[in-house]
């Protein structure tokens, strides 16, 4: 039996979904698949335009893109930890309109405390602090859309 493109894609998806898995080698008949997370084969995804010694000018549509419009993330201090959005959605600071916010700057929180909500199509997820510490920065306005993995709130830990 031969592995199809679809099979390989599925294998890669499974590997990708298992976060603890760092390296895998799969031998199947004459077929060998070697995958390593963050390996050299998959070069870093940061923007970089390698300029090849092009024998002729690039077609306009294939010109390397201008530097990526990546959102600039605020730098974190030594004891600061950012709570990030686990999904894209609308950021809410309080449990319901008119109610006081879950946290304000200066508030001491424990890992299990809810610090905000994210709503996707009427489905609300409560976001936990994840660490013990003090809220030192709130980076998003109430009601704004946040992207996946965007920094929301910064907690300063005591050690």
């Amino acid at each position, binding site marked *: 039996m*031969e*592995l*199809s*493109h679809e099979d*390989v*894609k599925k294998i*890669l*998806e499974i590997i*990708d*979904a298992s976060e603890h898995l760092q390296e895998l080698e799969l031998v199947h008949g*004459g*077929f*060998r*698949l*070697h*995958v390593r997370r963050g390996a050299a*084969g*998959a*070069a*870093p*995804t*940061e*923007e*970089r*335009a*390698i*300029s*090849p010694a*092009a*024998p*002729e*000018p*690039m*077609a*306009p*549509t*294939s*010109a*390397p*893109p*201008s530097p*990526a*419009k*990546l959102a600039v993330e605020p730098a974190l201090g030594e004891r600061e930890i950012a709570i990030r959005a686990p*999904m*894209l*959605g*609308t950021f809410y600071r309080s449990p319901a309109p008119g109610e006081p916010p879950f946290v304000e700057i200066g508030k001491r929180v424990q890992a299990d405390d809810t610090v905000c909500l994210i*709503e*996707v*199509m009427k*489905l609300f997820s409560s976001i936990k602090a994840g660490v013990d510490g003090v809220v030192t920065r709130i980076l998003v306005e109430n009601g704004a*859309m946040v*992207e*996946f*993995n*965007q920094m929301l709130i910064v907690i300063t830990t005591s050690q």
Partner: protein
Amino acid sequence: MSGIARLLVANRGEIAVRIVRACKRLGIETVVAVSEADQNSLAAQMAWRAVCIGPAAAGQSYLKAETLVAAALGTGCQAIHPGYGFLSERPAFARMCEQAGLSFVGPLPESIEAMGEKLAAVGIAERAGVPRVPGSDRIETIEDARHAADRIGFPLLIKANAGGGGRGMRLVHAARDLAGAIESAASEARAAFGDPALYIEKFISRARHVEVQVLGDGKGHIVHLGERDCSTQRRYQKLIEEAPSPAIDDQLRHRMTEAAVRLATQVAYRSAGTVEFVYDPESRNFYFLEMNTRIQVEHPVTEMVTGRDLVVEQIRIAGGEPISFTQEDIELRGHAIECRINAEDPARSFMPCPGCIEVWNPPQENDCLRIDTHSYPGYVVPPYYDSLLAKLIVHAPDRSRAIRSMGEALARFGISGVATTIPFHRAILAHKDFRDGAIHTRWVDQEFMPAIPPSASVAAPLPAQAAPG
């Protein structure tokens, strides 16, 4: 102007770039939804804004309907273009867009639903007087299958009602294999689609795949833009597409395009759609296969021979505007060919080759040469999605000149860092059968591939221990 000022692109790769371009032409701002793996994509660079919708795995990003609707609403978009694949043919997604007050750039959810269920689509075709492949209704039992097989004869094809992508499909040559094939097809269909329903069709050997491009305004006005021939396939995956088909004449073209328009009219179709036919050159009969309710990968060959922009038309229609031309305005000029350049290694059973594109040196684009791509020097082909790197499209006054200029363009296309299907395309274009237009949908698998000597560059066996680059 249309009511759409800003549009969310719910797709990736070359089609996301294609949609951004069409929007620029229309003066519409674009927001491109990207997974974490695509944050640096060419579409994201070109768009007004990109939003990260989730991690790389499509199930957690490009297939998350709620997230995409939330992203569109949160960035002030009035419309969503789903591209092809992913959510483009999910009626629930189209419905969700509508309920959120967003224009879905595609057909009504009811049309997607009707065409997604293969037997329902066949029924619509029959009501529109469009012939179907001789076949059965729903097969519930082995007995049903035996009765149908007696009537249809062997070889036959078992297909899944919820169908698509060859899953739940079985080719059966003899009665003794029927029961086993029915059983395994049903369980595969249940696993793939959650629906074990099957039906049976006569298998037409040496058939061609010919499809008709239609556009509808949703109010009953339908135009066609001629046909495409996609018979050059490997394992049911299209590799080379051309317009017009080298296998049909004007009379057949007329009958086929009329049938497609009748079918689309039957459902007052809205947006771009493709009516696929199986064409049997021996009997000169054609049969309805299915209707795809989205823009297709190979749409550029139609654009080249008609001079029309299908994605622009799709967006205008979604904004409530009429189609910008009539049937009489459509004139087919010359011949266009498209080659899908995939990051796959033809020498190693077309294994996908994710990795960094070190050299990307495509031929110069002009009126007769077009490249639809999201690749650039330094682009890292992610392992999570399909392997399409670029579509190379040429246009010439006739087929033989189009084949020649495609050959030259492929020869000039410099790519290093990842293996591509370019050598494979060059070998096919040089083959007498292809040049004579004498191929069928199984030709690559049954005749072209087996005939390649082991030493030839296309199929040179490499040491098995080489890891994908």
